């Protein structure tokens, strides 16, 4: 299954080291392929450096694409969207 969803970065400093770290840690439990697209650039969301290189500021829109086994994909998407909504605990 493939799921695609758009989220917005709410954090004041954008997708900086801490939120990027949260994302990477979150995805450690997932078995699916996860990528982020921002301003036409697509990166592997499991790579801390790749997320940082996106340099996504506050209010940037990110398209999350997850592909894999049905249950895992839905669960991963929920977790990620939730993390974005919660400002990654900031």
């Amino acid at each position, binding site marked *: 299954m493939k799921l695609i969803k758009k989220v917005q970065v709410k954090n004041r400093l954008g997708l900086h080291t801490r939120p990027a770290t949260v994302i990477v840690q979150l995805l450690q439990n997932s078995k699916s392929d996860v990528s982020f697209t921002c301003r036409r650039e697509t990166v*592997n969301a499991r*790579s801390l450096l790749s997320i*940082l*290189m996106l340099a996504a500021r506050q209010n940037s829109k990110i398209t999350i694409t997850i592909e894999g086994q049905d249950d895992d994909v839905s669960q991963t998407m929920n977790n990620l969207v939730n993390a974005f909504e919660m400002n990654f605990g900031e």
Partner: protein
Amino acid sequence: MGDDVKEMKIRGVPISGGVAIGKPYFFTLSESHFPEYAIREHDIDIEVSRFRKAVDLSRKDVKRLQKQLEKEGVHEAAAVLETHLQMLQDTLLTTDVEAGIRQGLKNAESVFCTVVQRCEKKFMSLPDLFFRERVKDVKDVARRVLSHLCATATDRMPELPQDAVVVAYELPTSEAAEASTSRVKGFLTAIGGATSHAAIVAKAKGIPCITEVDLATLEKCRDGHVVIDGGRGEIILNPTPGTLRRYRKLCREQEDYIEDLTKDKDLKAETQDGYRVMLSANVETVADTSLMHRYGSDGVGLFRSEYVLALRDQFPSEEEQYTLYRTLVERMQGLPIVMRAFDVGGDKPGRLQTTLDGDERRFGERAIRLLLQEPEIFRAQIRAMLRASRHGDVRILLPMIACPQEFQEAKALIDDVYQSLKKNHEAPTKVPPIGCMIEVPSAAVLADALAEQADFFSIGTNDLVQYTLAQDRSEQSSRRYSYGHPAILRLIHVVVTAAVAKGIPVTVCGEMAADPLFTPFLVGIGVQGFSVAVPHLPVLRRRIRMLKFVDAVAVADRALQLSDEESVRSFLSSDPEG
């Protein structure tokens, strides 16, 4: 040493103080001389395994460094090292490199370098400073992995010869962290600001550090000794035997003098006729508190919380701040600590500048104005401070207050935060004392109104001089006026008089507090506290103990009548008690 090699002095920007003598060691940081060769198919597995081992050793290095720093009581750079660990697990630098080795049939160094260079190029092209700065971490991590892959090409800090004065273009944080004070006598770099991670680590370890050094000149004198004076930012190249003798004697004398003074650490800072002064320390790091206890003090008079920002690439959360503040409070051993709220500048609304760039901090939206404009940040810090205050004697200080209304607004926010903490049972028994920094001239003029609201005053002489005499504090060499100017003396007098009238304590922090020439004046007008950098504590204590309060009052009265700085200084120097 040949006759044609003359002794000479070069200057740089002082970062971390101390006098030292050593031999220059040119630290190689270049990643560009790595071998590139093809590997055969049946050697692929060996090559991949060699790479994995290098990454693994790098991870172990960083973990060991973290433990070492903790043991040394240096808490700085902990977050940076944590990021390094995460980067060492990043697929870009691990699995992708392994795939590159297999597909390209090339050696690990060249594949890794290509990946790293691509990353670096990408980071350097980003418009945001925050994100661009991450390239330093990539470089640091890459260097470490390459040093394990190719043992001869890069230097390792633990393997330096004794008494090395490390010379490098730029100092990576983890290298500063690895330096041992017994081997490394100093750092000389071409670039690197006072608030760079490496600088802060160097200061925390007490290693002299000078930046903006002309490396080309140093190169020419690489074979002899160098003398460095970190506090002055001076380096003496090709020192004559006489100079060396003089400085060796100075080093020994300094050590003996400090040892001697620290014997007095339990003596009270009291004049001969019983006027008691609170002698406190200005601190930035947890390590400062250990040194403070060694020299003896009445507490921390100024904790510059913005240093917390300099060590992280982003704004710390309430939890991170609480952990740090609590650690600090617990290190106080019951003594009070005055925590100043973030004194930082912001040049773009809504975008905090977390680096301490001196020039941009002078005017505009900074310190309390910024905090009031960004209430979530202010609240998070106050919450962390209030929670930490349950573990000791904490006082809160508000920076750059210009008028009573600003103070009132800030206090209202603090009270509100206190109430919300109280609902969750996370509050201390009562709101801690809230003080006002007097550094803006308007606050000094309105001191009587502010004294009604504030629980204490802290006079920031550095900024007060800057604003009152319209003089850039960063232009060290071209300073026309200083805190010895009569305008400053009289302004301070106004502040202290107002404070004494309302019965609130006044502390002086800033360079003036540490200057023994002005101690009689400050004591004489009724200042109750001095807050200085830790190394100044012993000397100041001895100065105060030599004074008689009645004489200090007379000195102050006379000094206030003088109308120019030169007369002030010459009068204070001629003071028979001095």
